[in-house]
């Protein structure tokens, strides 16, 4: 057998206080799709950033086609034929596709004036045309990147890597931002590239995808290789156990819902965003007591503004929101909180916590002005301490002390703090927006269980998520949001991944269709 295109031997990478990669061995054969699987923080991206020259490894060796190489910066990696598509796209939004494609090694025309020569967009456009025809990676070289959809931006990133002559392509969580159909399209492109002799490293934490597309799978846990296997030899639950280090329950256990009276009614809600664009266009929904209504949709289709409008953080342009028959439209957030609404916001750093505050203060943010926390304008330290100690124990928050700053906890524990604060109040309605984004499997399991518990206590739950598995696993009824509108509402029993995926891409269902 010939040498592998890429081989890592004993690679370690240390950050202050953390061993991000611990003696990692990894091999990529020519023409294979090798999945790198692991939880957030397992060291997948760090390892690939070492290969791409963004980090310098502390120990170990990198071999390309059997030759040991030194990779000091991305230029070295590109010269060795390694290209990387980062999870957060490395494209300049205000520039055109052609400009982004050639940035760093520009094509010029006319007199050779070094870095002051004339840029040649047309040549770039011609060069990438073939890529579009052969691999289904069509891009419009003249378009501004900021006007493109996420899927199109991802195509630009892949073309960018290929245009620089990449033979090894590293894709970091490429499906996180795609609809199921777009993901299928991406998989077709990947197969087409493999057929041409390219090799692909596919970083992900989604088990189903790995089994679908990978030739080989390497699992990382806490910076170490937990094992290497192939899809035919393993299963979802086995992979999950390798990732977490113990058996996990992937499917949330829940009994059938017993929905009661409607808790919240939304009528024809309209909301504008900061740029004055109408982003919620006439949404009507009903959440009943004791049920979970899931709102599915690709990120950026107005979900955030919908949640912000309900919770009083954004101005409602038109329409009404009722909770228990009482109108709460455009009330102050505090008044809305006091009607018994709990809110787990999308961005836990910006809107969920005050990162610079200790945990005990974060745990009373919503009701600090009320007894028992405040009496006659003074904060009661004893009540604050008792509350914090009780919640940290009850919700299994791993922290050195109750006065630790929220910013120094891990994402999973931060989210548990928010959930503890919101669910410990006497609530009628829980609004959770992307409650498990970026969390480890263990924390996800825990938070899902808590949400189902609240439902069984008779709380109405509005769950907004762009993770279809989360919606399908938790929700009793499912609404799909696209371009600011609710395209369909269905019982969970009638929902399939394919049906939701089409709706998420904006394909309307005709009423007559089966």
């Amino acid at each position, binding site marked *: 057998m010939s040498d592998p295109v890429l081989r890592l031997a004993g690679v370690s990478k240390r950050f202050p206080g953390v061993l991000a990669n611990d003696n990692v061995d990894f091999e990529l054969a020519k023409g294979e799709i090798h999945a790198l699987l692991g939880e957030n923080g397992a060291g997948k991206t760090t390892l690939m*950033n070492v290969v*791409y020259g*963004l*980090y310098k490894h502390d120990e170990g060796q990198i071999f390309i086609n059997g030759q040991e190489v030194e990779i000091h*910066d*991305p*230029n070295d990696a*590109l010269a060795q034929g390694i290209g*990387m598509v*980062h999870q957060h*796209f*490395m*494209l*300049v*939004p*205000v*520039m055109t596709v052609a*400009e*982004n494609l*050639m*940035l*760093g*090694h*520009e094509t*010029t025309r006319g007199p050779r*004036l070094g*870095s*002051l*020569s*004339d*840029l040649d967009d047309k040549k770039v456009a011609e060069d990438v045309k073939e890529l579009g025809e052969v691999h289904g990676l069509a891009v419009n070289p003249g378009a*501004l990147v900021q006007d493109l959809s996420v899927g199109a931006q991802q195509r630009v990133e892949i073309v*960018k890597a290929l245009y*620089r002559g990449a033979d090894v392509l590293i894709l970091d969580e490429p499906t996180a931002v795609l609809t199921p159909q777009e993901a299928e399209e991406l998989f077709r492109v990947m197969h087409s590239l493999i057929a041409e002799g390219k090799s692909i490293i596919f970083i992900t934490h989604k088990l189903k995808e790995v089994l679908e597309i990978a030739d080989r799978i390497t699992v990382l846990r806490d910076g170490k290789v937990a094992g290497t296997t192939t899809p035919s030899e393993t299963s979802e639950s086995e992979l999950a156990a390798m990732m977490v280090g113990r058996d996990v329950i992937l499917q949330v256990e829940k009994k059938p819902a017993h929905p009661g009276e409607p808790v919240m009614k939304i009528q024809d809600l309209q909301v504008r965003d900061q740029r004055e664009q109408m982003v919620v266009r006439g949404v009507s929904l009903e959440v009943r007591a004791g049920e979970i209504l899931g709102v599915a949709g690709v990120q950026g289709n107005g979900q955030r503004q919908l949640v912000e409008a309900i919770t009083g953080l954004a101005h409602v342009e038109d329409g009404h929101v009722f909770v228990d028959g009482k109108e709460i439209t455009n009330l102050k957030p505090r008044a809305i909180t006091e009607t018994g609404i709990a809110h787990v916001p999308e961005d836990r750093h910006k809107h969920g916590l005050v990162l610079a505050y200790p945990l005990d203060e974060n745990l009373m943010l919503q009701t600090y002005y009320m007894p028992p926390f405040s009496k006659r304008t003074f904060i009661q330290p004893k009540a604050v301490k008792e509350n914090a100690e009780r919640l940290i124990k009850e919700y299994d928050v791993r922290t050195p002390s109750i006065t630790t700053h929220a910013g120094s906890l891990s994402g999973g524990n931060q989210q548990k703090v928010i959930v503890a604060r919101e669910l410990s109040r006497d609530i009628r309605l829980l609004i959770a927006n992307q409650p498990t984004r970026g969390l480890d499997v263990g924390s996800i399991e825990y938070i899902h269980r808590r949400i189902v518990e609240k439902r069984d206590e008779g709380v109405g739950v509005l769950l907004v998520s762009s993770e279809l598995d989360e919606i399908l696993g938790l929700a009793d009824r499912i609404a799909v949001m696209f371009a600011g509108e609710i395209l369909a509402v269905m019982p969970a029993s009638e929902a399939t991944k394919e049906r939701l995926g089409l709706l998420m891409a904006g394909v309307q269902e005709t009423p007559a269709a089966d």
Partner: protein
Amino acid sequence: MDTVFFVGILGLALVKATPIAFGAMSGLMCERSGVINIAIEGMMLMGAMMAFLGSVLFDDLTGGNMPQAASLVVGLLAAMLGAGLIALLHAVLSIHYKVDQIISGTVINLLAIGITNFTANAYIDPNGIAGVGVFPVITIPILSKIPFIGPIFFDHAPLVYLMLIMVALLQYALFKTPWGLRTRAVGEHPRAADTVGINVNRRRYINVTLGGLLAGLGGAFLVLESVGRFQKLMTTGRGFIALAAMIFGKWTSVGALGSAYLFGLSEALGVRLQLGDVNELQALALLIGLGLALLALVFAGLKLLRRGTDKRPTRAIGIVAIAGLALIGAALFINWPPVEIPIQFLGLLPYVVTILVLAGFVGRAIPPAAIGKPYEKA
């Protein structure tokens, strides 16, 4: 009110716009690469003093045997060196030491005031040193004979021509060359630039220093072209007006020239009206009309330049243009009563225009996205 008045004031406006345009290009150079530059004023002041000292000392050391032009050129180089050095200091503070860029800029401004005032008090003033003179006006043959346009654009000192060339060159370089592409990428999304192998911090160092050289030229203009000698604090806020011109010009050099010209026009108007030989109300109306017409032209140009991304409504540009033309018409055909405007007020004009422009007309100017943030290599 005749064409001579017009031509005179429009030509003078270009002269007055020159240091502001140099300053604005200096700011542009820094900010497009992601470093805020509020130190243009200090760099210009430093440039002015060094231009004076450079030309005088060279003349002195050579015993006055060299032609005047040689001393002036040495002054020019000294100005670029001086301003370039304190720009380098700004770069070291804000890029290497990651000092807040506003603080660093303020430090540079104060430092420049300190150094130049000290030098003036301790050396220039007590010795009564006079300058070596100014660059002569070069009238470009043929082109200067074009009626109206000729005298406005082609009857100037060499630094004015240099400024016009630099504006065109920088516009081309920023938007049409690899250098510009990389510079803009570093200012918008440094991490993206890093991942394609561009050295973000080296590029910022180079750009900030080059920006210093341009500010130095702006300072040198005041000494070697305008006044002929160095005076304490002689930049009188032009560096900050340049900053406004850069923002108003939406971080493009052609836009910056347009707005610098607007400021130059208001300054020229103040100067011209102090002579007291024209009807001041009429002249004001005329020039405000001209200013509005010019503004409409700049807006329309910018809109053309960035098709699609510029959201300024076409109708608003039309209204500004019509208002401008109407005022010009009114100025020419109405008999205006003579009114005395105090000289002190006329000197205030450029600053009033700056405030109005920044407060009212800028709209939502979008700076480079990564501006003010030191780049942390992960």
